[in-house]
């Protein structure tokens, strides 16, 4: 017999995990099946909801755009087929509450509906709804004097350059950047996990030694932000450091014990300590993944990783194929996951598709067609492939909006606008109708559609069997 669950989620990214948690909240038995480890490990760890509702219309002459202050107020400005318009702001609030419950003290931003502005490792300022606690002291809306620190040999964070970018962006605080050598044998190591491990375990007093190097560094900041420096060689704090209120580091401040690491550095520096949200790979992303995995475990969700879904069976419901309003859609009965060549069957009552977009592999294309590879859900796209993209690299690309269509409950729609299957919902990047990169809405759409899809899946599952599943029933 196959492995049975009420709800099976295909895909383990933010959308899939949110759908799983939302479904588990309703009391369903839930399983997540994923092709590989979550790509949250590549994400910055920031959870955006909506930064630029009409990204291609509202740039000024210099190409600059102003982010929205409150994403919830801006939803009405979105096109009708945008996922936020379809599932509604209540689903978005629901998704955020699932996220907040799961992440607890690891994240900040839940105190307001307004966007926070977070300086990133690229020297830009990003509007975001939730941000790691490790990032919180670095917000751009804060006017405290800031020193950014990079490590010698780490090509990902060029601190003086990031500081210069932020000054050019007009942040309301003084900011300078320095490069220091990471203490001990680790100078020049570019493996983030190695540095994080050393800080986690305070290997050879590395926390203290790093803090001391940072304290001696401001006079080398190369600008007049911190005033004239003193003699660095005496090991005492130079004049300039007294002005520094907060210190930003590459995001390597611990994997297992990040708070302990930050607190220890802050105490020695007598300044607030934060991390710059990084480019991939990303420890804030790794921490988020671990935290959500723990939340799934606590919620009793089973997770099966490393097994792509390769096949499925469909059973037409009674009366399927008839006309009119009473035309029930067929049901997906069995899902097959590949395990190194063997096909493992699963028999869930409802399925959530959360396989990601074009980059994640949830949507794929050939020269003349765009398609959804798992269930072959229809994906609308222009016939002529030259219309798939815009001539302007940052222009309104059609491909950015490719994806499956869903209804207000997250059900996947067929070409005729009716649900494709009675028990299939979709969430996250696989859903079309939004330009995540330009709008800065990727995480919020995953949360909102994940919430809707997870709850609808539970309803679809319970409608398939009136009594709760009895595991011993068919012995």
């Amino acid at each position: 017999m196959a492995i049975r669950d009420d709800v099976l989620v295909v895909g383990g990214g933010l959308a899939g995990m949110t759908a799983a948690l939302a479904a588990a909240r309703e009391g369903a038995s839930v399983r997540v099946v994923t092709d590989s480890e979550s790509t949250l490990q590549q994400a910055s760890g920031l959870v955006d909801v909506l930064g630029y509702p009409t990204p291609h219309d509202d740039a000024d002459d210099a190409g600059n755009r102003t982010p929205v202050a409150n994403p919830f107020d801006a939803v009405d400005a979105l096109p009708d087929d945008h996922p936020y318009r379809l599932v509604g702001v209540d689903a978005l609030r629901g998704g955020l509450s699932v996220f907040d419950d799961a992440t607890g003290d690891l994240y900040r931003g839940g105190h307001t509906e307004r966007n926070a502005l977070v300086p990133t490792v690229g020297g830009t300022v990003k509007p975001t709804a939730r941000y790691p606690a490790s990032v919180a002291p670095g917000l751009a809306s804060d006017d405290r004097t800031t020193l950014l620190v990079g490590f010698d040999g780490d090509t990902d964070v060029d601190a003086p350059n990031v500081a210069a970018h932020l000054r050019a962006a007009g942040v309301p605080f003084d900011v300078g950047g320095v490069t220091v050598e990471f203490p001990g044998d680790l100078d020049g190591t570019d493996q983030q996990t190695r540095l994080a491990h050393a800080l986690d375990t305070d290997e050879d007093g590395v926390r203290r030694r790093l803090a001391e190097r940072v304290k001696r560094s401001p006079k080398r900041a190369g600008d007049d932000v911190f005033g004239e420096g003193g003699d660095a060689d005496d090991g005492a704090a130079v004049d300039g450091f007294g002005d520094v209120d907060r210190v930003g580091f590459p995001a390597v401040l611990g994997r297992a014990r990040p708070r302990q690491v930050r607190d220890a550095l802050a105490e020695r520096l007598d300044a607030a300590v934060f991390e710059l949200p990084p480019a991939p790979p990303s420890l804030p992303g790794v921490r988020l993944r671990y935290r959500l995995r723990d939340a799934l475990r606590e919620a009793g969700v089973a997770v099966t990783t490393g097994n792509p879904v390769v096949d499925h069976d469909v059973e037409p419901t009674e009366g399927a194929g008839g006309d009119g309003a009473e035309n029930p859609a067929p049901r997906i009965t069995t899902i097959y996951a590949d395990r190194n060549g063997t096909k493992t069957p699963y028999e869930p009552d409802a399925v959530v598709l959360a396989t990601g977009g074009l980059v994640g592999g949830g949507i794929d294309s050939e020269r003349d067609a765009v398609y959804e590879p798992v269930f072959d859900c229809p994906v609308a796209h222009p016939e002529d492939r030259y219309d798939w993209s815009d001539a302007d690299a940052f222009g309104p690309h059609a491909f950015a909006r490719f994806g499956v269509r869903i209804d207000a409950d997250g059900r996947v729609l067929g070409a005729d606008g009716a649900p494709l299957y009675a028990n299939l919902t979709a969430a996250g990047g696989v859903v079309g109708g939004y330009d995540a990169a330009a709008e800065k809405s990727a995480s919020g759409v995953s949360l909102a559609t994940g919430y809707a899809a997870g709850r609808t899946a539970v309803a679809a599952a319970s409608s398939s069997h009136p009594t709760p599943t009895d595991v011993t029933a068919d012995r």
Partner: protein
Amino acid sequence: MTDEPQPHDDQDVQDDHHACSGCGSTDDAGDTAKTDGGTAVDDAGGGTATDGGAAVDSGDGFEPIQVFPEAEDADLRPGSDDCYKCSTCDTTCPVAEVDEDFPGPKFQGPEQWRLKRSEDHDIDDSISKCSNCMRCDSACPSDVPLSQMHNTARAQYVDEQMDKTSLKYWRNRLLANYGTMARLGSTFPRLTNAVMGNSLVQQVNEKLLGITAEREFPEFATETFRAWYAKRGGEATSVENARRARKRRGDDPDADKRVAYFHGDYANHNTPEVAKALVHVFESFGYAVLVPEQRCSGTPMFANGMLEDARRAAKVNVGNFSELVEDGVDVVCSCTSCSMALRQEYPELFSIPGTAKVAANTYDAVEYLRINENLDGELAAADTTTDDLGVDSFAYHAPCHARNQGLDGQTVELLSQLDDVDAEDVGDSCSGISGTYGWKTEKYETSMKIGEEMFEHMEEADATTGMTECPTCAMQMEHGTGYEIEHPLQVLEAALVDGATAEDEAA
């Protein structure tokens, strides 16, 4: 490498043929027949490679000209090209987290492969620091075959750059060929245990061979699993037991329910109780358990770059198991590294006929029962008490090779069906021993540093007993925490099999 025709596989076949025609002994002939057993019509790729090799070796000294100089390595190019340098693999590498001199899987795989395109580049020494945990495989968002690249590079390193007269080479060879050692040890288990447990011998091992004296050498069982199986009447007994169980269960007594058990060396020589548990549990579900002749799965050989040793072992295993698979018999393993080897490493590295078919029909033993029987339901219905088990809580560690097969959640899910039994997952970290890796003096410290997180979580779990599927993870868990370690099959046996042990003891 896949089952596509491989020039060096052709080479291998040629060598075999030379060996055969050279000595013409019946032994070799028998071996070849076994190896070719699966040729028939099965996986075309492997078949082609073998046939190609044989045809080329027509005995007239013809040597094919390599028209495309890079063709030999062409199959790793797409994988290398698929890498877009996100470095996610590096963040999941347990070795890179504790050893700054290890440049991580992205370098060892795609980057090193590219560097090797230029003739004057050696494989970097750091390849031997990779523990072959294979975590990078499932971390990669772009399906780069990292462990395949590592295995290939490591084999090339050992082949071309390692001094074959060095103690390190022979130490590695000895560790990799544990099965050979174990066969000797099992002949006089008590004597061997006494000798290996002797602290003077341990010091000699450490000083002379570089095998750490920090660890207790695993004890050999006084009776191997295979000896036990033969003594209880071999296949005939298992067939009869299964038939009786089917009758008792109300199933068709004449049904053809058979599995072929790949037990590997460790369950045979060191933990026969795990292998016996498998036999009892499968027989209770009505399956006859067959135990074809077999050698080591090859896992320690891959990890030590001894690819030719592994190929020889794989040939025997694939040959013997593919005959049964042809007959519709599935293969089950109790060790997750063994199942990993049969399912993933064999098809990636060898083009032995029958490999693909064996890979597609190999399962973890517990996974197999979950798919084909109502294992969860029967466990939930079993009125097992903690007294029956002697244990009320387990600290469970998922081996990396179980994780890579998507099996990491399985045991905790299953055991949650048992009332009164608590199984806590001690987290996603690697145990750090990685087979023979943590046995090497120069790797011991790294191994223990990697294991630190698991040790902490196990201690926090405050359980009665530790649990895992992998024999070397079990050694590390015991070594780092003092917990006694069980295999999930032993719990299934206690929960589901009535009096099996008593029955056997009586017999």
